[in-house]
């Protein structure tokens, strides 16, 4: 149903993406494509895959952004940063992609908040992709239907998989653990605690979609003092400190 269920379990399954540790390797995007090409929303069509203009459906796309402090002083090249930015469905609490759907094909599950598409009901009007500010929906011209991230609903509830593998493919594959999966409706969950500790943010909060997925902003850079020479402490009391000072001097040559 296109209306958002008023009675939910309070469970809000989603992802937390750590922009501090994401290295932009695109493994999440590739693993997602691989799993979902045979899963719930399969196939994810590729057109002209080996030709001049490959064109296809992906649920995850990794962008790279450069940030620059706004103020003139303290700015400059030293304070610019490169941030790898994975983008996928945020399984919003207020998903307009669901409410605009004229057929009821688009729906948000009351039990866990996952936003899905019933492909047998989708008429391919594309209105949901217009309603999503995050670009989380992509049209598949071969099936004539819209496709989107399922949060690997066919992995996370799959009792044939060992419990440790009942996580989305993008989370399983991430080499730096920049993606975490869990219940963001439970304040005591690992993901919720991480969001609280790191000041996790919503994307485009002013638009009112209330995304479940959170992004952890990059940590502050370590001060330059961390790489300055260690204080020379000859005759100091601590033998360990003296040894480190000696190693530092040796390596600094």
């Amino acid at each position, binding site marked *: 149903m*296109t209306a958002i269920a008023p009675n939910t379990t309070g469970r809000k399954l989603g992802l937390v993406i750590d*922009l501090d540790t994401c290295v932009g390797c*695109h493994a999440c*995007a590739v693993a997602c494509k691989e799993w979902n090409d045979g899963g719930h929303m399969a196939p994810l069509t590729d057109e002209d895959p080996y030709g001049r*203009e*490959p064109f*296809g459906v*992906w649920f995850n*796309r*990794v*962008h*790279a*952004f*450069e*940030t*620059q*402090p*706004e103020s003139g002083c303290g*700015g400059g090249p030293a304070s610019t*940063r*490169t*941030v790898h*930015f994975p*983008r996928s469905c945020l399984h919003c609490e207020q998903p307009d992609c669901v*409410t*605009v*759907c*004229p*057929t*009821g*094909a688009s729906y948000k599950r009351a039990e866990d908040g996952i936003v899905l598409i019933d492909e047998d*009901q*989708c*008429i*391919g*009007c*594309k*209105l949901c*992709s*217009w*309603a*999503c*500010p*995050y*670009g989380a929906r*992509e*049209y598949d011209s071969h*099936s*004539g*239907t819209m496709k989107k991230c399922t949060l690997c609903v066919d992995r996370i509830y799959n009792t044939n998989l060992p419990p440790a593998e009942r996580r989305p493919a993008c989370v399983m594959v991430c080499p730096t653990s920049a993606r975490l999966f869990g219940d963001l409706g439970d304040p005591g969950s690992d993901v919720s605690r991480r969001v609280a500790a790191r000041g996790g943010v919503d*994307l*485009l*909060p*002013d*638009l*009112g*979609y209330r995304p479940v997925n959170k*992004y952890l*902003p*990059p940590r502050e850079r370590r001060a330059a003092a961390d790489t300055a020479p260690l204080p020379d402490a000859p005759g100091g009391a601590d033998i360990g400190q003296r040894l480190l000072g000696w190693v530092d001097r040796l390596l600094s040559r």
Partner: protein
Amino acid sequence: MHPAASVILFTVTSGMGYGLLALLAVLGSLGMLPPDPGLGLAGLGTALALITVGLLASTFHLGHPERAWRALSQWRTSWLSREGVLAIMAYPPAVLFGGGWVLAGRTDGVFALAGWLTALLAVLTVCCTAMIYASLKPIPQWRNRWVMPGYLAMALATGAAWLALLASVFGIGRGLTDIIAILGLGLAALVKLAYWRHIDSAAPIATAAAATGLGGLGQARLLERPNTQENYLQKEMGFRVARKHANRLRRLVLIGGFGLPLVLILAASFLPAAMSIWLLALALVGVTIGALVERWLFFAQAKHTVTLYYGAATV
């Protein structure tokens, strides 16, 4: 936003059809147009044909047109669904009103009631079409207070241009229909000017920093796209051609779609019927081309927040 031909054709022709239908229904029910069978058949026939062509054109936009009937189910939340429901609801009273006009030669009593209902449903359907766009938060050029007046005024102007031509062909109610067409075109021009002024001066709703949550680090600028070729999002939401020629196209709409037809209709109103038909037909051609260009611009000029992930600094 990518301007799909089927959606432009749908919104323009259905708007024309509902405009003409509403005008005939209101003027007929008020007794301001006599129930002449020729005018009734041609007028209501044209209106329903335009509406039907428009609705059929809209299904060409779909990946699964054979499932279009499903779109009627979600009227509680979806403006697209509401539009479909109202569009279908408008047919029975329109047919009853048309039957009274053409077959019984009457537009009073129950037929007048059917006429008022027809006009109401026609106006509400156009409102729903507008709301499909005006309800989309990620597209500021669509989600603003000038979009619904724009759709209503364009439906009125294009429908009135048809009515003026038909009235001239059948030699009925000419002075009145000319005045309505002139007022409709003037109103539509003013509303579109206000709409363009609004979208040109409105403050952006979002930045790349807000789209990435990186505001804490200052400004954000796209360094690398995720893909080397264009994807669906870029083709559908990142359409770029129109903004370059926007001012020229707006002048074309103002002069060819509103100004010239207005002068032609004004001139026609001083001419005998036989000569006025040609001017009014020319005016209708101008209005139609103007409406198509205006609707193309409406789509092509709209910027979606997803472009923030592909290089736009603000939307």
